[in-house]
């Protein structure tokens, strides 16, 4: 097999791909060696996901050629790629919801005899796969009851069941906790050691450095360099990605005035069957961080306050006076703003223009008689776009054409229209590139400095620690720890978040 090793498992030559007027990839050439973990890194919009999807047959390149085991191929669909043993585990898992894990894993390749399913053979094969990958997953569960990490496990098993030789993992850890990430890494390494090639798309640099063998950096759809992971550091990668040196820094924390009044007061909130007995205050100018694992109830607290879910119990007071918020409409009127976790599905109308998105909750303030005053609308939206620095050709560009960072800024602009009293930001920097992250940090900081009460939810602990004046840690739907500026540190927050396996978390982190 030594002769074969010289032939890359996958080789991309001069690949180009455009979506409409946007050049996602230009003249990219990369060789991926068999049996290695090869990372594709870059800012959002650098083209790393697109490249991964081309390998897996999801996208077809406009230019250049794709070679698999030295043979030129032209995949017209993921099915074609799968026939060659190439597949992708997408950012959002793609399991059939009403079939069990077992049925999903063998979907389309069910062992059968004379058209009859061999359920027992299927089980046996499942056990073999589970053994081979050291993945621990109950076969009879339905995907809806699984966490993202478990759905990914099912996807990995599904790939293995099809004798896949190369797996593209597209941002696999963006929705995983630290612990789950660690386990995914172990699985990934085992895959590699078993001879499977892994193309790993991510923008978590520390993860990549810990996991992969080779790193390809992309910038603005072009290849920057491909080098062994051992020769790279987080700094060199960031520099290559940005073409300039940029360190993520948090603005200096300005404590809210000691006599700053309490703006938002939550008492005994129970919501969505997940959150129970959550109470906290947020003062004017204060940023309160909600930390915790995915599924610990942070988003449900946000949604409960905002009226997106009808709370089961609890009272909410604004400026000391109890208020009833039964729908997001009530919350908007009371000048509470929420940037939802899922920006694309719940935050923005992707097909509509930037201006339409910004003005949507505030049209009642923009009407003269029955009419929307277009000029006023454009003026206000334009002001807000400048304030949060949305980079777009014009306000009439559709939101779908913007990068993740700019989409998030549009969401900020939308909610700053009415100068909210309370701003709840749920994962405001998820899927956002480094430059935009920095801008969002500064924005949140300046909003608080202007006297807004801010609730910040983030799965990136450094973000919560870097920005918040106080950190509340949630676990199992309750607030289990509170840290002020002096007592907060990553170790303590992690301990509180994991608690149940505190020793393990402590040992790893």
């Amino acid at each position, binding site marked *: 097999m030594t002769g074969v090793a010289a032939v890359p498992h996958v080789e991309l030559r001069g690949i180009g791909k455009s979506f409409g007027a946007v050049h996602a990839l230009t003249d990219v050439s990369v060789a991926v060696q068999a049996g290695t973990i090869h990372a594709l890194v870059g800012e959002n919009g650098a083209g790393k996901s697109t490249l991964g999807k081309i390998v897996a047959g999801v996208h077809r390149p406009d230019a250049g050629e794709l070679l698999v085991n030295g043979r030129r191929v032209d995949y017209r669909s993921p099915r074609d790629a799968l026939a060659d043993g190439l597949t992708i585990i997408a950012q959002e898992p793609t399991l059939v919801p009403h079939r069990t894990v077992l049925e999903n894993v063998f979907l389309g390749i069910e062992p059968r005899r004379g058209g009859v399913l061999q359920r027992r053979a299927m089980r046996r094969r499942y056990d073999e796969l589970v053994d081979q990958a050291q993945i621990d997953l109950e076969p009879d569960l339905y995907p809806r009851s699984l966490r993202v990490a478990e759905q990914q496990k099912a996807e990995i098993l599904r790939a293995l069941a099809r004798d896949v030789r190369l797996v593209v993992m597209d941002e696999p850890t963006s929705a995983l906790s630290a612990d789950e990430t660690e386990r995914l890494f172990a699985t990934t390494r085992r895959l590699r050691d078993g001879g499977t090639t892994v193309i790993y798309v991510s923008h978590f640099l520390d993860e990549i450095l810990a996991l992969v063998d080779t790193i390809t950096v992309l910038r603005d759809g072009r290849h920057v360099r491909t080098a062994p992971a051992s020769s790279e550091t987080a700094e060199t990668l960031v520099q290559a990605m940005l073409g300039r040196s940029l360190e993520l820094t948090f603005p200096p924390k300005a404590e809210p005035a000691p006599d700053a009044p309490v703006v938002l007061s939550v008492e005994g909130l129970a919501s969505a069957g997940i959150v129970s007995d959550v109470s906290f205050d947020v003062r004017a100018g204060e940023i309160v961080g909600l930390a915790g694992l995915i599924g610990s109830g942070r988003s449900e607290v946000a949604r409960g306050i905002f009226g997106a879910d009808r709370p089961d119990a609890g009272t909410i007071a604004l400026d000391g006076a109890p208020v009833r918020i039964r729908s997001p*409409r009530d919350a908007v009127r009371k000048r509470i703003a929420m940037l939802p976790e899922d920006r694309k599905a719940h935050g923005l109308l992707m097909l509509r223009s930037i201006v339409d998105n910004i003005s949507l909750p505030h049209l009642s303030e923009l009407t003269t008689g029955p009419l929307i005053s277009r000029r006023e609308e454009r003026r206000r939206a334009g002001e807000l776009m400048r304030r949060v620095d949305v980079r777009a050709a014009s306000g009439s560009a559709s939101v779908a054409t913007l990068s993740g960072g700019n989409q998030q800024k549009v969401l900020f602009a939308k909610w700053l229209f009415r100068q909210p009293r309370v701003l709840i930001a749920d994962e405001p920097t998820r899927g956002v590139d480094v430059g935009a992250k920095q801008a969002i940090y500064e924005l949140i900081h300046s909003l608080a400095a202007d006297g807004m009460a801010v609730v910040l939810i983030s799965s990136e602990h450094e973000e919560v620690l870097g920005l918040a004046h106080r950190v509340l840690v949630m676990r199992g739907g309750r607030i289990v720890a509170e840290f002020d500026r002096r007592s907060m540190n990553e170790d303590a927050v992690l301990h509180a978040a994991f608690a149940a396996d505190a020793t393990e978390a402590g040992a790893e982190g």
Partner: protein
Amino acid sequence: MSVERATPLPVGRSRLPDLRIVRDYGVVVAFVAVFVTLSITSPFFLSWANLKNLAFQTAPVGIMAVGGTLVFIAGGFDLSVGAVSAFAGICAAKMFVGTGMGLWAALICAALAGLLVGVGNGLLITLGRVNAFIATLATSIIVNGVSQVMTGGNLVSVDGNRFTTLGLGTAFGIGYPVFVWIAFALGAGFLLTATPFGRYAYAVGGSAEAARLSGVRVNVVRAATFAVSGLSGGIAGVILVSEVSTAQWNANTGIEFDVITAIVLGGTSLLGGEGAIWRSVLGAFFLLMIGNGFNLLGTSTQWQYVIKGVILAAAVSVDAWARRSRR
């Protein structure tokens, strides 16, 4: 080296025409193409009399297509306008004959009966949580039944020419229905583009959850679009009945499919969140123009349906491919 000899495969796609342009302006291109073709091939097509007549014939479907466009944009679907239009026709005839109501009062009340059915649809779909397709199917069955009960299944005839004032009256040689259509389309277009309600309709159809989290009363907006669609069925029904002076429960059976065809041909998406009134106006015109062309050219009318069906399928296919190329 164990490298296989491989036959080079062409990678990438040849420059196909951009499907999004075909989708966005396809109706315009197709409309102009058919219009020009018919103008050349038929000596009668491009005459004032024929075009006037064409607009007159299109008006009822066109009015309902305008109402239906609002529903589509807000992410709904309305199958009941055919039944509603017949029902409104019966109401108009019965009220005019039986109650001694003034003509215009009877017509307006009948059109409002359509609005009422639309409100019913809206409630069923929002508060009742019934899928729009099924809900409007159910109401159309119910409305058909009510129409039969009201008429005993018989034809309702109205004597005298006064009843046909709306349907057959003209101003500047153009039938009143055409003016009603224009007014309704302008009103709906205005509602859609210039008022908050229009923005909300697009928002609800684009992402109901995003709209809700922006403080939009999703159910109210949805129900309102069905109410407008019901009203459009009522108006169309009143026009149709006053053209012929007879009302029958099954007079307009199947017309709802012409309406849906017109909307889709225009390029308004079934998936919601996108679309425009002018599209459906053009779509309706296009649809009727094909029929008109067949008649003028003396081709057998049966083939019309084949062609209409093929065009509809092609329009939806182009839409789907255009969406795909956006990935």
